[in-house]
C-alpha cells in the first residue's frame, strides 16, 4: 500500500466545509478527530479542490485561506489556483 499523506486542520466552524470537501473528493481519505483538531490521512495522494469548497460555502474561496486553519501536513505539495495536492512520489 502507498504511504499515507495527511493534512490536519483545526476543528472549528471554518474548517467544516473544507473537511467535507476533502472527504467527498478523496474516497480513500480517513478522517480522525482528536480534541481541537482533525487529521485526514489518505494513501498516496490527497486533493483539495477550490470548486468543491466553494460549493459548500456558497462564496469565492482562495486556496491560500487554508493557511488560517491548517495545523500540519505530510507530503509533497503542488498548489495552483484551483487545486492543492499532497502526494508521495514513488
Amino acid at each position: 500500500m502507498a504511504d499515507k499523506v495527511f493534512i490536519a486542520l483545526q476543528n472549528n466552524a471554518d474548517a467544516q466545509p473544507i473537511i467535507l470537501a476533502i472527504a467527498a473528493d478523496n474516497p480513500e481519505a480517513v478522517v480522525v478527530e482528536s480534541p481541537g483538531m482533525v487529521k485526514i490521512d489518505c494513501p498516496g495522494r490527497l486533493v483539495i479542490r477550490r470548486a468543491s469548497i466553494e460549493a459548500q460555502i456558497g462564496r469565492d474561496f482562495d486556496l491560500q485561506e487554508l493557511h488560517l486553519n491548517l495545523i500540519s501536513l505530510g507530503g509533497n505539495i503542488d498548489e495552483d489556483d484551483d487545486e492543492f495536492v499532497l502526494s508521495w512520489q514513488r
Partner: protein
Amino acid sequence: MAKGKKLGLKERYALMTRGLDWETSYQPMDAVFPYDHYEGIKIKDWDGWADPFRLTMDAYWKYQAEKERKLYAILDAFQQNNGQLNISEARYLSAVKLWLQGITPLEYAAHRGFAHAGRAFRGAGARIACQMQSLDELRHAQTQLHAFSHYNKFFHGFHGFAHMRDRAWYLSIPKSFFEDAMTAGPFEFVTSISFAFEYVLTNLLFMPFVSGAAYNGDMATTTFGFSAQSDESRHMTLGLEVVKFMLQQHEDNVPIVQAWLDKWFWRGYRLLGLVGTMMDYMLPKKVMSWQEAWGIYWEENGIALFHDLARYGIRLPKHHEVAAKEKHRLTHEMWLTLYQYGNALSLHTWIPDDAELDWMSEKYGASFDERYRPRLVYLREREQRGERYFNNRLPMVCQVCQIPVFYTEPDDPLVQCVRIVEAGGTKHHCCSDGCADIFRREPEKYVQALLPPQQIYRGEAGGARDIWEYAAWLHLEKDVDTGEYRGSPDQQHWAQWQQAHKATPADAA
C-alpha cells in the same frame, strides 16, 4: 485604468519573488553572499527553488494579520473569563512552565537564526521563505509570552524564564540544541530546524501535545499552539524543499545532507524526550501515549517522507532503530530523572495517581508493570511517609545533548547507557551511540560545550555550594516554585479555588 486579467498563483509568485531580485554589479555575488558555499553544498541553479505554497509577501501579511486577530480575540476572552480556572488541574501547568522555559526561547532563537540564514542565501525564493519564517518565529515567541503571562498572575514558577535560560541545568538541553544549529552554516541550519526538527519531529509537539492541552481545558495554549502550527506547515514545506533542492542540484550534496539528517534526527529525538514526558506524565487527562504518537508521527508519517527521499539516495537516519527500542521506556526514565532532581526545576513533579498508572499499564504493557510501576509506587510510598526522595547532587550530562546520562542500553533496559569519547587527550561522556557519533564527527565543536554541572562545581553559579543555593541563584523559591506538587502552594490554591467555585451564596452567609 483598464482591468487586466488577474495573474495566476504561479505567475504572481514568480514576479513577486525572483522577479524582484537582481544580480549585484558593484561587488561580485560571492562577496555579497560569502556563507552559502563553504559547507560544500553545490548549487547550479538557484531558480530551481520554488516555495510550493507560492506565498508572496503581500499574501503573507494578509493571512498572518488574520491569524493574529483570531488569536488575540481568544486570548482576551480567556483572560476576561478566568480561563485559568478551567484547566484540568494545577499540576497540568508543569507542562506549560516547561514550554515557556524550554521552548519559547527556542522560538526567539529561531527568529534570529532564520534572519541570518535568509541573509546568507543568494536565491530569492529561499531568502523570502527564510524571512517569513524569521517573522513567524518572533510571532510565536511573543504570542506564547502573552498567553502564559496570564498564568503568571495565579501560579508559581512562571516568573524567571529569561533569567533561567542561560543558567538552569535542564534548559541547557533545548538551548544547546539550538546553539548547535545556529553555529552551523546556513544550509545545515535550515536542514536541522526546518526539516529534521519541524518536518520530522515537531508534529509530536504541536499535534498530540496541543490536542492534549485542548483536552485539559487550556484554551490559551491550544489557541497559540495551533496558530503557531499553521506557520509550521509552511516551515516544514520550506524544510522539505531545501532538502530536495540540495539533493537535486548536485550528487556531491547527497552524503553531506545524509550526515546532517543523521545528526539532526538524533538531536531532535533526544530533545523530544522532554515532550513525550509532558504528554505521558504532565497531562492529568491524557490523549495519546508517547509510544502511540511516535508510531503515528514518526513510524508512519516520518518514514513515508524518507521513502520519498530514497529516489535521491537518502536512507533512514542512523539509530532510528534505537528510538524504536526506547519508545516504551523513554518517558518513564525521563520522568524518574526529573522527579529526583525536582528541587532544581521551576516546575513541580509528582508520582501519578492509580488511575494514571493503570492508563500507563494499558498503554505500555508488561514492561511498564515490571520495571517502572514498582519504582513509581515505591517513591509514592516514601513521599507519603514524609520522605520525598530528592537526589541532592548534580547529574553528569551528555557532552552533546546535555541530557543527564540516565538512559539505558538499547538492548538492556536494566543497564545504564554511557559512551566515552576522547578528544585531545580528554575523555567526554555521551548518553548514546547517536550522541557519540555526533561528537566524533565534529569533536572540535563539542569539546567547547558548556555543561552546567561542571560550571556549578567550578563556582560559576554565584558560588553555590549545594543544590539549594544553586536553585536560589536561579531565583527559585524552595518548595514554592520547585519540588513536590502535593502540598505545594499551587496545589493548595487550586483546591481553594475549586471549592470557592462550587460554593453557593448560602454557604458564604
